[in-house]
């Protein structure tokens, strides 16, 4: 871990999360088949693939950083009959944090966002992200106007947050604060976006 990287001097260092994402993410999501899932790149793509495979009810990115929340919004508007979950990381969300404002003004009741916050850019050498340096994405989600928001730091808080994601009658956001010391599951997946798209549509759209 790179302790030397410290942007600015005005911010308070945040204590890093302690939850193990390999336990906390599945506990928060519950039965993955209850959802249509859009995953951000890197860690959350692995979290999602490990939960869902061999089913194809998910689309995971391996690029286009900053697109996951907006992709989930388009899917949620297209599929009011299903609950849509965006599972993304702190770095991915920070790249287009304005997406939270766009979601908030639409406030789709079937769109839930879970941000797996390990405070680091895990794919690029575990440099600290802004959330290790004082930035609170749950506060930003609240400030954007998302009506149902929780920040989860302990295992005992997961169940209630999971209910919020499933039962909120407006858009919901959960910040899941996990340790950077335990990475996402190791799982091999195809990086072919066209294949992932066709697979998702074949699995989730009615034939015809």
């Amino acid at each position, binding site marked *: 871990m790179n302790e030397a990287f410290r942007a600015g001097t005005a911010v308070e260092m945040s204590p890093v999360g302690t939850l193990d994402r390999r336990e906390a993410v599945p506990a928060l999501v519950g039965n993955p088949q209850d959802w249509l899932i859009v995953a951000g790149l890197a860690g959350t793509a692995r979290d999602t693939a490990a939960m869902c495979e061999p089913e194809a009810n998910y689309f995971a990115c391996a690029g286009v950083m900053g697109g996951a929340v907006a992709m989930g*919004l388009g899917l949620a508007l*297209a599929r009011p009959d299903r609950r849509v979950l965006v599972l993304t990381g702190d770095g991915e969300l920070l790249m287009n944090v304005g997406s939270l404002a766009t979601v908030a003004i639409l406030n789709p009741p079937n769109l839930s966002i879970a941000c797996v916050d390990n405070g680091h850019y895990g794919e690029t050498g575990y440099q600290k992200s802004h959330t290790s340096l004082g930035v609170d994405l749950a506060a930003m989600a609240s400030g954007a106007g998302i009506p149902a928001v929780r920040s989860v730091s302990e295992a005992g808080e997961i169940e209630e947050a999971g209910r919020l994601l499933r039962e909120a009658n407006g858009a919901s956001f959960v910040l899941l604060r996990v340790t950077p010391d335990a990475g996402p599951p190791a799982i091999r997946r195809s990086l072919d*976006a066209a294949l992932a*798209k066709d697979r998702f*549509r074949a699995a989730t759209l009615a034939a015809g």
Partner: protein
Amino acid sequence: MTDWQEDLYRVLKEFDVSQVSYVPDAGHRVLIDRSLADPEMHSVPLTTEEEGIAMLAGAHLGGARGVAAMQSSGIGNCVNMFSLVKNGLFPMLVLVSMRGDFGEGNPWQMPMGQAVEPVMEAMGFVTLRIDRPEDVEGAMRAACTMVFRSGQAVGVLLTQKLIGAKAF
């Protein structure tokens, strides 16, 4: 004066477009107003244009059709997100109200205005320029057919000959 904008909206409706994303621009004023007033249309104001590209990819995952409306400067904000379109072979319809071309009076608009076509073509889009009001309906029908029947990415450029050049 605004008849071509009515033509444009009618063609979108004919092709069952149900999501409109935009960062507001005067060239899209009628499209935005019609979409806001239309109970069958999701009218989505964005904080940055690239959200619209990701949003419409999500719409396609859910079996819905959409259009992203933006000013030429917005194309610059979208470039990396176009990777999703090119790599994933997503159908994508982008309406670009041009600044920085014919008769532009604001030099800040010129670099991106002139870069719209080469940038979009580099990222796999077919681009159609519309200069005359009477061409809007036919060009929109052609664009929607290429996008929604052939699965292509198409940029429709509403030029300053069509919408008028701004002197600021």
